[in-house]
């Protein structure tokens, strides 16, 4: 079943086109990553589909247009956690419940999930940024929504805060809910998401299951004592798709099936002795950088 259908959505801020003819479809159960560099239009897109920003063109539809108040079935964090600073966690969650219309007034399980049970009676203003973000995650789960939207949920957090939020997201992703996650942390997206869309300057560059976005290319990180000789040798080869330098080592992009042992053997024969060699599949981060740099 289609949860969200976006058709040709556009938004301008003066002369700047923040979102440009964006079309996406998100289905039930998908964990959908929305990727893009800063200013690519991710938050503007989420703002439009959550009704706080008006669109200049195009349309979107939640749950096939079947729901009268679709946003009550969606839990959302957009940019920063927004709560009444003088109220405590329970009181703030109660306001969310009041708006969403859920029955359960006991938030113990939710606060336990985000590890805030001990501080539930402290005012929101006294929380650290990580605690605020975790309360925001708890708020998204109030009234058992069908869809969750997280916009940069680890933004501004310290390493411990990032780890806490990441663990919570992983736990939520196991519940089978539809999740839309806009994030810079590609490692996280790669671990959690089943589908991704990559946008830049408001335009959709790529979309599909994570597996289809990731190419079959392999990355080889290689180093040798004779660095110049190694560079000259690699540049002369025709079976290497791209070469880049990363500190002391060369990063090679090669097709799946490339024989690394043959490369090292030939290098040794040419008098270049390999001192460092790492072979790995391409990561989402590399694909992301490659796709966005082309656009």
């Amino acid at each position: 079943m289609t949860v969200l259908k976006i058709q040709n959505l556009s938004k301008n801020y003066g002369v700047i086109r923040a979102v440009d003819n964006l079309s996406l479809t998100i289905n039930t159960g998908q964990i959908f990553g929305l990727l893009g560099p800063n200013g690519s239009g991710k938050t503007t897109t989420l703002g439009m589909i959550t009704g706080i920003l008006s669109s200049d063109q195009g349309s979107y539809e939640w749950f096939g247009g079947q729901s009268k108040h679709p946003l009550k079935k969606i839990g959302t964090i957009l940019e920063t956690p927004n709560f009444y600073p003088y109220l405590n966690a329970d009181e703030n969650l109660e306001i969310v419940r009041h708006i969403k219309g859920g029955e359960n007034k006991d938030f113990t399980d939710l606060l336990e999930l985000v590890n805030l049970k001990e501080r539930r009676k402290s005012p929101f203003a006294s929380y650290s940024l990580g605690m605020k973000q975790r309360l925001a995650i708890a708020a998204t789960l109030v009234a058992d929504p069908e869809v969750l939207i997280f916009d940069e949920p680890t933004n501004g957090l310290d390493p411990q805060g990032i780890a806490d939020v990441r663990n919570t997201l992983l736990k939520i992703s196991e519940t089978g809910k539809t999740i839309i996650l806009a994030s810079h942390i590609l490692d996280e997206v790669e671990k959690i998401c089943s589908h991704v869309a990559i946008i830049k300057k408001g335009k959709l560059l790529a979309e599909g299951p994570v597996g289809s976005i990731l190419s079959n290319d392999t990355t080889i990180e290689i180093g040798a004592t004779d660095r110049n000789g190694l560079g000259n040798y690699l540049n002369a080869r025709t079976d290497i798709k791209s070469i880049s330098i990363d500190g002391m080592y060369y990063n090679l992009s090669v097709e799946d099936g490339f024989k690394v042992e043959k490369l090292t053997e030939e290098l040794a024969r040419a008098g270049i002795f390999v001192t460092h060699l790492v072979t790995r599949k391409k990561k989402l981060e590399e694909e992301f950088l490659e796709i966005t740099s082309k656009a």
Partner: protein
Amino acid sequence: MLNLLRLEYKKFRKNSVVSMLCFFFFLFTPAGMIVILGLQDVELPPPLPSAEMYYRFTLVWDAVGYIGSWTVFFFLGIAIIYSVTAEVRYKTLRQSMINGMPRTEFYLSKFYLVLSFSIIATLYYALISLVIGAFSTDQYDLAYMFENEWAIPRFFIMCMATLSFALFIAFWVRMSGLAIFLYYVYVISIEPSLRGLSSYFLDIGDWSKYFPMNIIEDLMPMPLYKLAGYLEMQREKADILIDYPIAMGLSTIFIFIFLGLAWLSFRKRDL
């Protein structure tokens, strides 16, 4: 309606600013009468009546009403502005929309707050006037007690109009400091200046008193204007003040205009 009012109560019951402003309203409305009490010892030249008259029926309705119009303006008006602008500052307005609250419901929740404040303030006004009047008047009957030229509905319309104006400024400006500044400055300085300038340059004469806040103020005018009647200055009174039925009708129209403008400011704006 009750559901939305309950939500407003949950949001602001622990808010020190709103609590303090409401407390000040309840304190200063009767406390303002003490200022008049101080005048009791001042010997007024005849034919001016004694200041004690302000405590007696029927003038007590005008005296408490006049003080109440200023405490509503200063305290409840600011509380209404704060109830909107604080939600903009905390971004809870935006979060309410994200959580699925329709804009109409958010707007209605604030309108119901205006309505509730007006009802409570009017009941409080009636109670204070009755209590002070009952203790200060020697002889009275029920008919005489309420001989007040529709003071209770007038006070209610004054509250609704003042607070609707505050609501419009809040939704329009959205920044606490600027909204409160504009709210004060418009009433205290801008409108009186406009009235003076329009009267001087446009030669509109008596029409300059039909500016919105002046009409609303004339619902609960300074009791001294009424005393002008005792001094047989009825003609001058008619020149200064708008007749109550006209002021009530025009203020009601302004309530709808302010509420409409507040809705238009909020309806489609990006949050």
